[in-house]
């Protein structure tokens, strides 16, 4: 297979696969946060702050995949 074609497919796979795990994780975390707010509405501010922080952490996993994809597209060492 042509190395460029392989790179494009690999980039698509990288970002696609890397978004599965964080997607599940973020859904879980948000659900738990909503449950927490429903149980304890007075703790909403604290829960929201922590939730945003943890979401950013999970998001960065996808971003790692994106970085790999970008490397494959723009700075590919094999092309």
């Amino acid at each position, binding site marked *: 297979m042509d190395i460029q074609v392989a790179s494009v497919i690999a980039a698509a796979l990288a970002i696609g696969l890397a978004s599965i795990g964080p997607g599940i994780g973020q859904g879980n975390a948000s659900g738990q946060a909503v449950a927490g707010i429903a149980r304890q509405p007075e703790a909403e501010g604290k829960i929201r702050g922590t939730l945003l922080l943890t979401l950013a952490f999970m998001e960065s996993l996808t971003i790692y995949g994106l970085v790999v994809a970008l*490397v494959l597209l723009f*700075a590919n060492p094999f092309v």
Partner: protein
Amino acid sequence: MFDFDATLPLMAVQFLLLTALLNAVFYKPLMKVLDEREDYLRSGDTGSKDKLAKAESIVKEYERQIAQARRESQDLIQKAQAEAKEITTTKVAAAQQEVQSQREAATQEIEQQKAAAFATLEQQVDSLSRQILEKILDPELVK
């Protein structure tokens, strides 16, 4: 994209310089201001505590005065009530006495009139009985 060069160390040095600079012109003076304000607030806190205690003592004093005034007024009311009761009892007694005396006077008068009436009646009884006798018997006989 991943081309590391002299940008990295220069950026690090530049960042450290920025930290030192901001420490001098931003963090130190403003932290000092914040700390001073906190101290000021804390000292203001104690002053306000004193004022609060004073206010509470004043409130207590006022409450004591109010309680005393209430007690006094209660006393006054009781006294007045007692006085009023006394007055009414004496008046009632006087009235009752008067009534009694009037009644006695009235009964006496009645007795007197009764006696007078009886006396007149007795006189009339004599004359009447004589008239009856004259009517039933002979008039001469009566004489």
